[in-house]
């Protein structure tokens, strides 16, 4: 499909304002009116239903702003000025409190309203476009698409819109919005001393970042060390799971093995047990006074209990090993499914040409697998960077050390964040760190995903 810089109406596609300016210049009275009242141009041309719908949206939006959003938006720059009031009431002999501005809600609902505003502007632009298109078509004497016909295009040319609308809305509401909110929190001083409803917090600019990188060396040191371990953990965890899982899948997929289903089921049972259950079990089993240690002592393997989870190096190794136990069934399932998708004729033609099994593995299986599972690997890698469950349930991030600020030696950035938010209510610091986690994960994923073969050679495989 060739990129078009000019739409079928002749208005330039690139340039938000250029397009609007063009429509304004070339539009007639009704279209110009549509700038103020959405949909008028459409109604004028006979697309009554469509025009009325646009108009209704506009009215709805304005009502929303006045009724709900303005009280928050107006306070966005200060995040609240009137705190909670405490007034002594003589007749009732008690203090009566009137709630003041709630900085949290101000920030949150302002962000939400700003996002809705952006959406509305998009809708406004769409309405203008369709009005102008209607005008051009009627000027050219062509028939205007009826509402029914518009709907039908949603099933074919614009099918992507049908497919993507619902999911996008949900994602925006539950992921984008909270993320933007959180990013903004990093620029405030929302911590234990500024908790609503009694207190308000306000903007502090880059102070949190300065603290993290200079003003408070302990924090900066902890951040660097925890980041380092998070990386090491993510790399080892992801690749060990992937490679070993693939090996197991290949073992089972081997022609000679009978009862393939049974073998897979055995591994799959461990997925069926909820992850937090198996992890809590593991933490009981591996406990210094737990069954594994007493078994080892009874069998004569060791004399003293092994500190699986409380000694620094052992804890790190144990956590990686337990992660293997948890993760290999997953990777095995995924690679199994893909292994079976590889067209058999590739292997047949290769063996006709006289290739050995090893050669076939490296030239056919491996590239195919890597291509198809690259998105999975990236997801898994980032997932491991944010792998809260395994670390939290096994060691709670410990063992804690004095040189870290509120962190332990198996803490990932996420578990450290959790402790900062839940135990210390230090949301602003946690958000600052969260931004870095996000930048790192996102940056890595984007680079790898777009540079890797999978996106460049998409068409090739199809």
């Amino acid at each position, binding site marked *: 499909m060739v990129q078009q810089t000019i739409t079928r109406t002749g208005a330039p596609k690139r340039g938000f304002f250029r397009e609007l300016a063009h429509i304004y210049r070339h539009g007639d009275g009704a279209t110009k009116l549509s700038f103020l009242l959405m949909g008028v141009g459409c109604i004028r041309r006979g697309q009554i239903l469509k025009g009325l719908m646009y108009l209704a949206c506009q009215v709805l939006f304005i009502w929303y702003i006045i009724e709900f959003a303005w009280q928050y938006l107006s306070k966005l720059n200060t995040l609240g000025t009137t705190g*909670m009031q405490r007034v002594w009431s003589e007749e*009732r*002999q*008690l*203090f*009566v*409190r009137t*709630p003041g501005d709630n900085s949290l809600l101000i920030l949150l609902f302002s962000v939400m309203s700003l996002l809705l505003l952006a959406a509305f502007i998009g809708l406004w632009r769409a309405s203008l476009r369709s009005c102008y298109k209607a005008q051009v078509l009627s000027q050219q004497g062509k028939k205007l698409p009826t509402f029914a016909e518009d709907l039908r295009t949603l099933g074919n040319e614009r099918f992507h819109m049908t497919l993507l609308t619902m999911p996008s809305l949900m994602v925006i509401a539950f992921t984008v919005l909270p993320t933007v909110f959180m990013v903004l929190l990093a620029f405030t001083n929302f911590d*234990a*001393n500024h*908790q*609503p*409803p*009694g*207190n308000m917090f306000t903007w502090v600019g880059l102070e949190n970042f300065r603290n993290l990188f200079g003003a*408070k060396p*302990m*924090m900066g040191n902890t951040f660097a060390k925890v980041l380092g371990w998070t990386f090491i953990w993510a790399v080892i965890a992801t690749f060990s799971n992937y490679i070993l899982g693939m090996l197991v899948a290949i073992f089972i997929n081997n022609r000679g093995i009978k009862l393939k289903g049974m073998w897979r089921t055995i591994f799959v049972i461990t997925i069926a047990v909820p992850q937090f259950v198996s992890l809590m079990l593991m933490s009981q089993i591996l406990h*210094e*006074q737990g069954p594994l240690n007493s078994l080892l002592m009874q069998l004569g393997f060791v004399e003293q209990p092994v*500190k699986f989870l*409380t*000694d*620094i190096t052992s804890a790190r190794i144990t956590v990686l090993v337990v992660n293997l136990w948890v993760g290999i069934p997953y990777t095995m399932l995924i690679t199994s499914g893909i292994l079976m998708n590889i067209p058999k004729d590739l292997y047949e033609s290769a063996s006709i040409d006289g290739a050995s099994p090893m050669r076939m593995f490296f030239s056919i299986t491996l590239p195919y697998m890597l291509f198809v599972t690259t998105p999975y690997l990236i997801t898994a890698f980032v997932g491991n960077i944010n792998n809260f469950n395994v670390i939290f349930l096994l060691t709670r991030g*410990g*063992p*804690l*050390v*004095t*040189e*870290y*600020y*509120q962190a*332990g030696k198996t803490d990932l950035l996420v578990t450290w964040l959790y*402790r900062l938010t*839940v*135990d*210390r*209510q230090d949301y602003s610091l946690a958000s600052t760190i969260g931004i870095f986690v996000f930048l790192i994960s996102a940056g890595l994923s984007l680079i790898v995903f777009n540079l890797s073969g999978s996106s460049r050679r998409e068409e090739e495989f199809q």
Partner: protein
Amino acid sequence: MKRFLSLALVMVLALSAALPALAADPVKLKVWGSQDDQEMLKEMVAAYNEANKDNPVEVEFGVVGEPDARQRYLEDPEAAADIFAFPNDQILDLVKAGALLEITHNREAIEAANVPGSVEAATVGEFLYAYPMTADNGYFLFYDKSVINDEQVQTLDGMLAAADAAGKKVLMDVSDGWYIASFFLGAGGTLGIQDGVQTCDFNNERGVQVGEAIKAFTAHNAFMTGDNAIITGGMGDTIAAAVTGAWNAIAIQEKLGENYAATKLPTFTLGDEQVQMGSFGGYKLMGVNALTQYPEAAMALGEWLTNEANQLKRFEVRQLGPSNIKVGESDAVKANVALSALAAQSQYATSQKEVLGNYWLHAEAFGATMEAKDYSKDIKTLLDEMVAGITAP
């Protein structure tokens, strides 16, 4: 006749205006309590409604344990309960966040009825912010009489020797800021608040000596660490003595049977002298939500739930030590081995008021390093790092 009719009309009108006020909306309150307390709270509220037939309250119960109270409240103050219980170390955070309503009804009576320590714990500045509910959130020593006799239990070294001879252990969760403080506080260390920042002198000369004592303790063969589950699981079998609180009393009593005993914490060796171990005093308080719609009713109910009769009930049902003076002097409470040990220890207890949030994790880190027998750094360095973390603004 006309006048009579118009008078009657006026009266009817006046009555119909007053009637709605008489049949007022019932007061709706929400109460949070831990899972185990739900039954008991329901009974207490029913009794309240019996005693206050003209001002009944409709109570909705929510399950939020005391340790979670602060977090749950701060997550959404508007949806929080009108009355909730919390441990006293959360009071500073709650007051700072404007969560608690000042108790102004019957304040003097409440302050007179409860032990001074609990009242002090519930007071911030010049206001009383909560009703004292229990006074047993401190810790002391449980031990197995058949392994450690009364003389040995007086000193830490004696206990360790006795336990070691019997092949058992002395348990103390040193990697918990709450417990490890007993060494430092007993030796005279102080925690304070200045300009909103924590001050801590655990790394001075005496503090380093204390650190050495802790190191010797954790390095001893008979030392063991663990949490509640370990204590209740191993008491009597592998554990001869444990530092813990009244919440484990029932389970430990089951395990030890006739050999069940409890007393104050021992003295430990500091240089050439024996120093009594201190502890943190702990209380559970019941607070009223500052944003409640019915402050009078909430205060009345809060007072009721923590009055003498109900504190006695709490002791009988849940074995929780009361903060009410009269109940504390009753024979039943005095006969309770755990509670009298707690009372003995509370002479040496320090309030948690001056402890800010930063303290806990860093003290825990030091304790964990000692438990792991990680001697890569010397005591002074470790203590310096610990204090640096604690006193960070």
